[in-house]
């Protein structure tokens, strides 16, 4: 077979963002040898970009806060589609996870009495987001990174080797989860080093997916090149299902001008700290967009909204702080109605709301970002903003307590790649806390699983045939130009020989992004989504001919050609599930089915690979997809948790049948 370097570890964590690093720390502290693999340099995962904060009901600013209130907000934000058990664990454990960061050296902004300060955010009843200015993600990732280093220092003191028990393989991409010869249990991973192009295989009984999201399949996005949905695709290919893939969060405020920065995030803290949205007529339009389910919870006048910042106990919050899906849709409607800003967004203004000094202190990186990239001084003029693809609620179907992926022993998932926690829409700040809560759980249970495998002498061995196939698949782009496949591939799929000229992976990627943006974007229609599925199928055929020049050493064209497989799989999940769900809820808005339907709340759409044995021979027939959809009933919410809500509110979400049970 192709030359691959092989190593053996107990737990492999794919991803070095908040979820991956937290998992690795836990696995190492549970006594397991843990390898972390990531595509970028250590410390540069997507988590570094998080701005606003991390949600945890510590009650430092408003004593009324507690986990029950946080749970309630989270369920409301997700329109009750959240897995209630995940939302419960998340709300209960988030404060401990934040406090723990302090003991590892994190320095959050402080309250006057020296505690961790907390700020307001959309959908959160109380000021709840622990933060460091608007660079909270940087603080989070640096703290976890430094905690890893401190564990490595301990190992060094004991063994003379920093990497004896915890090693980060940076700039490496995993392309396949490998199973044992029976195809049942996880046995390790296969991937390549970006720098050298060399292949490697790591044997391990437990693998944690912590690969983040899918936003690079959309044209206007706040996400980086890393977000090609790798973990989602790896799970599918390993036989694990994904849920809730129709729910994609479009953040209401991305930059819209100049074109080269379109999509870059403008943090929600701008609104949390007092920023207001206006249309071209100068009107604070959000007051016209408060949906019925939220009528009692939001201010009905500008005066009341303004008073809330000073006196939140006697006033209701301004509608600029509605959950993200509501605000994004409202902005979309204003622009469509011709009341947008010159570059197709709306105005977000802090300059008339706070003194320049306060703006610079509280929103330093926004100030910097606009000044450097758009020549806009946010202390003196409004920003222009519009929706941008930001986060995927859908992901690997996991057990809430252990983060184990359904149906694939040894596979775990945490962070953005896992599904269920956020239901149909995630609240701001709930991701960073999710990473820590479920990252820790995934690390813990992966370690236990690995320990049991070791104790019982049943460490699975990676199947050589799967490794060979993975190597052939990764090499395919180099032989695309002459229409030839490496022998290992063509043997199994003679009928699937690509015909036609080699395709440029960059062009394919752009077409994919355009398709998803235009046809499965923020507002969806059945006909457009059907069209999208056809285009995706055609792109899939062409992607088999994606070819690259040059050699394997740090070759971004090659990397992209490989990533296309993942983006196409994940995009199909989004499009299929979105077409199936004939209602509007959270991050899924149907122009042709605008109402939320209580019957649909009881349904999770589950995506699986239609032919898991197909290997590399993905169907080339455009009529056939790669994804099969199933409907599954959501588990009933535990009664004591339901009792946290008023009946009046529950009737908006739950069916009569559920209410009487």
């Amino acid at each position: 077979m192709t030359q691959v370097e092989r190593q053996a570890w107990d737990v492999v964590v794919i991803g070095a963002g908040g979820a991956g690093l937290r998992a690795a720390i836990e696995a190492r502290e549970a006594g397991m040898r843990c390898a972390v693999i990531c595509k970028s340099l250590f410390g540069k995962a997507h988590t570094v970009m998080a701005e606003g904060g991390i949600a945890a009901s510590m009650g430092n600013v408003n004593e009324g806060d507690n986990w029950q209130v946080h749970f309630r907000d989270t369920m409301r934000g997700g329109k009750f589609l959240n897995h209630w058990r995940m939302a419960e664990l998340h709300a209960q454990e988030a404060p401990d996870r934040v406090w723990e960061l302090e003991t590892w050296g994190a320095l959050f902004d402080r309250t006057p009495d020296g505690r961790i300060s907390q700020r307001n955010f959309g959908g959160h009843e109380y000021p709840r987001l622990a933060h460091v200015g608007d660079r909270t993600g940087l603080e989070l990732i640096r703290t976890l990174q430094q905690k890893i280093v401190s564990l490595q220092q301990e190992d060094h003191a004991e063994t003379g080797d920093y990497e004896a028990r915890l090693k980060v393989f940076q700039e490496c991409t995993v392309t396949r989860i490998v199973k044992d010869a029976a195809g049942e249990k996880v046995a390790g991973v296969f991937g390549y080093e970006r720098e050298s192009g060399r292949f490697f295989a790591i044997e391990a009984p437990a693998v944690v997916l912590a690969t983040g999201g899918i936003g690079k399949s959309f044209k206007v996005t706040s996400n980086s090149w890393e977000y090609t949905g790798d973990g989602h695709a790896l799970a599918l290919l390993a036989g694990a299902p994904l849920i809730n893939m129709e729910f994609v969060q479009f953040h209401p405020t991305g930059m819209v001008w100049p074109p080269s920065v379109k999509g870059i995030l403008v943090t929600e803290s701008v609104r949390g700290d007092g920023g207001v949205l206006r249309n071209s007529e100068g009107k604070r339009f959000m007051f016209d967009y408060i949906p019925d389910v939220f009528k009692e919870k939001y201010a009905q006048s500008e005066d009341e909204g303004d008073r809330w910042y000073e006196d939140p106990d006697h006033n209701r919050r301004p509608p600029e702080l509605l959950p993200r899906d509501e605000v994004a849709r409202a902005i979309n409607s204003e622009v469509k109605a011709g009341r947008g800003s010159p570059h197709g967004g709306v105005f977000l203004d802090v300059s008339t709301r706070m003194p320049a000094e306060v703006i610079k202190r509280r929103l330093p990186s926004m100030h910097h970002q606009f000044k450097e990239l758009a020549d806009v001084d946010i202390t003196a003029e409004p920003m222009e903003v519009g929706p941008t693809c930001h986060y995927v609620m859908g992901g690997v179907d996991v057990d809430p307590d252990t983060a184990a992926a359904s149906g694939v022993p040894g596979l775990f998932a945490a962070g953005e790649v896992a599904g269920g926690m956020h239901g149909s829409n995630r609240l701001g700040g709930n991701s960073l806390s999710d990473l820590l809560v479920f990252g820790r759980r995934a690390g813990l249970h992966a370690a236990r699983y690995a320990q049991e495998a070791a104790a019982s002498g049943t460490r699975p061995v990676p199947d050589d045939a799967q490794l060979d196939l993975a190597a052939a698949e990764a090499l395919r782009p180099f032989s695309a130009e002459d229409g030839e496949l490496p022998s290992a591939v063509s043997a199994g799929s003679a009928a699937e020989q690509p015909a036609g000229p080699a395709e440029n992976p960059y062009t394919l990627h752009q077409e994919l992004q355009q398709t998803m943006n235009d046809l499965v974007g923020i507002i969806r229609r059945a006909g457009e989504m059907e069209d999208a599925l056809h285009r995706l199928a055609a792109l899939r055929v062409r992607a088999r001919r994606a070819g690259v020049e040059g050699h394997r050493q740090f070759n971004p064209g090659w990397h992209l050609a490989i990533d296309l497989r993942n983006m196409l799989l994940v995009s199909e999940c989004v499009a299929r599930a979105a077409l199936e769900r004939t209602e509007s809820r959270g991050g899924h808005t149907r122009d042709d089915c605008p109402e939320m339907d209580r019957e649909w709340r009881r349904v999770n759409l589950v995506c699986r690979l239609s032919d898991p044995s197909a290997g590399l021979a993905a169907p080339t027939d455009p009529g056939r997809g790669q994804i099969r959809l199933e409907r599954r009933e959501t588990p009933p919410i535990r009664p004591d948790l339901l009792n946290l809500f008023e009946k009046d509110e529950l009737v908006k979400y739950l069916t009569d049948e559920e209410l009487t049970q």
Partner: protein
Amino acid sequence: MSAYEAHFRVWRGDVDGGGLRDFRVEVNEGEVVLDIVHRLQATQAPDLAVRWNCKAGKCGSCSAEINGQPRLLCMTRMSVFSRDETITLTPLRAFPVVRDLVTDVSFNYTKAREVPSFVPPEGLGPGEYRMQQEDVGRSQEFRKCIECFLCQDTCHVLRDFEQNKEAFAGPRFLMRVSELDMHPLDAAGEAGIDRKRAAQDEHGLGYCNITKCCTEVCPEGIKITDNALIPLKERAVDRKYDPLVWLGNKIRRREG
């Protein structure tokens, strides 16, 4: 502003050598240098190697040298150059090249490991930490660091003298020592770690002759020299030559 064609010279090659290659490439309104590199990849040089992630100056991945100046590719606007200027892109000079604009920055990760970590204070559990904003503010400034390593690249101690790499941690990691030293609750002293002395003896603080070049290139605008290195030098000197100051500090700290 209308689109125009710019002249770029980009270093292409690997450990075995390489050279500047000429490109003519379209530039549109508002673009940054990284956009141009991406356009080169998409249209002329698909295998051109470059690191990037956030494209918003937050991750510190896209460091390179633009016309010889260490900069972030994603935060350098094309509008700062005139249209007929030739723009030269080269990899960071202080680190070994891997390919094209990508360098081997592992030196920095090695140095990071040599700085003893935060030592949590005994007797304070999670949730019990109390610190005032004005006391955390100093270390917070240093924690804005995005680890772009531009300061490491520009500091002449590392840039011009390969042999110093062994002894000198560079501004980024001396600043890390300073950050921990200023952390209001770091209990390194109690654990027998003297951060100031270590800065001098183990991380090569003495090599720094406060030229402030590091501060000038820091994209986060951190006052590395004034706020981190000089205070560290002052205190390290106190300790070396004045045992009384050292003792006094120690006692005061315990009381506080």
